[in-house]
């Protein structure tokens, strides 16, 4: 009799494992059907709504972000199973540093814990062979978080199956400014190396030639290749959770032709059905967008 509760627990554990396996199998079958059509190569996420989720469920501060991390792991699993090669997430914006210091510190502590866990053997990084990039102004992070991020990047540098780009201490206008600065420096270096000198003469012909040279010196490709996000193609889909419809200074340069999707679900509530809906819409518009890409 005393063994009965233990047996019941073992049985229910076994049943839930079985259900999970059936669900996983059905999901993979569904993905096989969907991948008969075009699959996006790069998906970006703005993970909005963790704090509202905690408030909605009466949880303590910080629990929303933990729930958000679980949702992220599930979403990464779905993306990589579906065959999406690049996933970018907006983990922490430069603007977020203006939040309350306690909240910023708690977010940094959580990020440090989760970054370190990426290197564990059971982590999703090893499961899917993920190469991880940390994109942003890493100098703004504390030493521990920065060191952990650099270690993960170094450790996963040889992985090539799929890629995870974590935008941390990032905002797009900062990324563009840094790329512009690098382009300017490269341009001056190239000019000095080729022996060109400045023209002080105000003659309009020489000024005209000057302008022409300037036009040729810097092109779009110069700025593009200096962008930190140049390690990945432009996102095909950008999903922002919690129903807010704005970019919040995320991937502005890269999302010129990206499909935007803003489900009402808070980030910890995001699930397979939202991903599927976004991908099916992508497939619906794919041929038109491919035509536009060729025109660019």
């Amino acid at each position, binding site marked *: 009799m005393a063994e009965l509760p233990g047996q019941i627990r073992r049985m229910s554990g076994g049943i839930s494992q079985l259900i999970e396996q059936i669900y996983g199998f059905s999901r993979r079958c*569904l993905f096989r059907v969907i991948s008969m059509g075009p699959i996006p190569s790069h998906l970006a996420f703005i993970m909005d709504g963790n704090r509202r989720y905690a408030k909605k469920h009466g949880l303590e501060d910080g629990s929303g972000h933990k729930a958000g991390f679980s949702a992220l792991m599930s979403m990464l699993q779905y993306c990589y199973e579906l065959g999406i090669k690049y996933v970018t997430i907006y983990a922490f914006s430069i603007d977020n540093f203006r*939040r309350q210091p306690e909240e910023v510190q708690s977010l940094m502590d959580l990020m440090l814990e989760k970054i370190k866990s990426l290197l564990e053997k059971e982590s999703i990084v090893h499961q899917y062979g993920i190469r991880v990039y940390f994109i942003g102004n890493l100098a703004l992070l504390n030493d521990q978080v920065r060191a952990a991020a650099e270690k993960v990047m170094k450790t996963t540098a040889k992985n090539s199956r799929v890629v995870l780009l974590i935008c941390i201490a990032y905002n797009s*206008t900062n990324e563009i400014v840094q790329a*512009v600065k690098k382009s300017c420096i490269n341009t001056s270096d190239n000019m000095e190396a080729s022996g060109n000198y400045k023209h002080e003469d105000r003659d309009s012909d020489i000024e005209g030639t000057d302008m022409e040279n300037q036009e040729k010196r810097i092109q779009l490709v110069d700025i593009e290749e200096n962008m930190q996000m140049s390690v990945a193609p432009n996102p095909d889909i950008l999903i922002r959770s919690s129903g807010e419809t*704005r970019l919040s200074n995320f991937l502005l340069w890269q999302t010129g032709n*990206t499909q935007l999707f803003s489900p009402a679900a808070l980030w910890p509530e995001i699930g397979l059905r939202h991903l599927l*809906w976004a991908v099916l819409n992508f497939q619906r518009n794919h041929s038109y967008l491919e035509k536009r890409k060729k025109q660019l």
Partner: protein
Amino acid sequence: MLSLLCFLLSLLFLLLLPCLRPCFSAKGSLKDKKKIDKGTYVVGEEEPPKGLRRELMPRHVAVIMDGNRRWAKQAGLLTSQGYEAGAKRLIEFAELCFKLGINTVSAFAFSTENWERHKIEVKSLMYLFQRYLKSKIQFFQSKEIRVSVIGNLAKIPESLLGIITEIEDATKSYKKKHLILAIDYSGRFDILRACKSIVKKSEQGLIREEDVDETLLERELQTKCTEFPSPDLLIRTSGEQRISNFFLWQLAYSELFFSPVLWPDFDKDKLLEALASYQRRERRFGCRV
């Protein structure tokens, strides 16, 4: 057997997905539980419609006027007639925005990518811009609306360039209402142009490399013609949900409103709906409120 069952279940799920669409999609519309009260709308510069608050009006509204060709096709008209209807709608839209106290309206009239369209269509668009702008110079002057045109403008016909210069000169002194038309515009080229300007100033010793920051770059963008370069609200019609290389930098914190309506059908009610959605939003700019 089991795999066949799962396959059939997957197909059934896919077929049922369209029925579940209302659960998934949410732009401002999911939050729009209240209807706009049409009956008490008062036209005039002092009274905003009921449900809208003057102090929460956006200062700058941008619009991607999508759907003119589809509208013409649906109505059994020529594409050029669709564009005419779109141009007329833009003037009404801008006028209404100014009456509601919005200072700046910018419209994506012609993208750099649009040069790839059929030559005849492009030519007819250029002619439409020329004709419309010329015919509206007196209108803009009478309403004291400043008109600016931004874009590369390298490929547009000389005659249109002439009209643009004329209309900009004729209206440059007006301050309270500003209509910006983006013609041959690309968000990326705007940033590239700003970059080239910075390089030039750096070579002339006017700025140092360490001075280059976000504020400086923003001042070099073509939207420097307005006091409010960043739109508070971007509206895109016709149901497409993308920016299409419009203001990339400037839209960093803009609220986006995607309407399924085609541009020539985007009337006063639709604009009020967009503004109501905007006013209900909580803008945090990365911080907590």
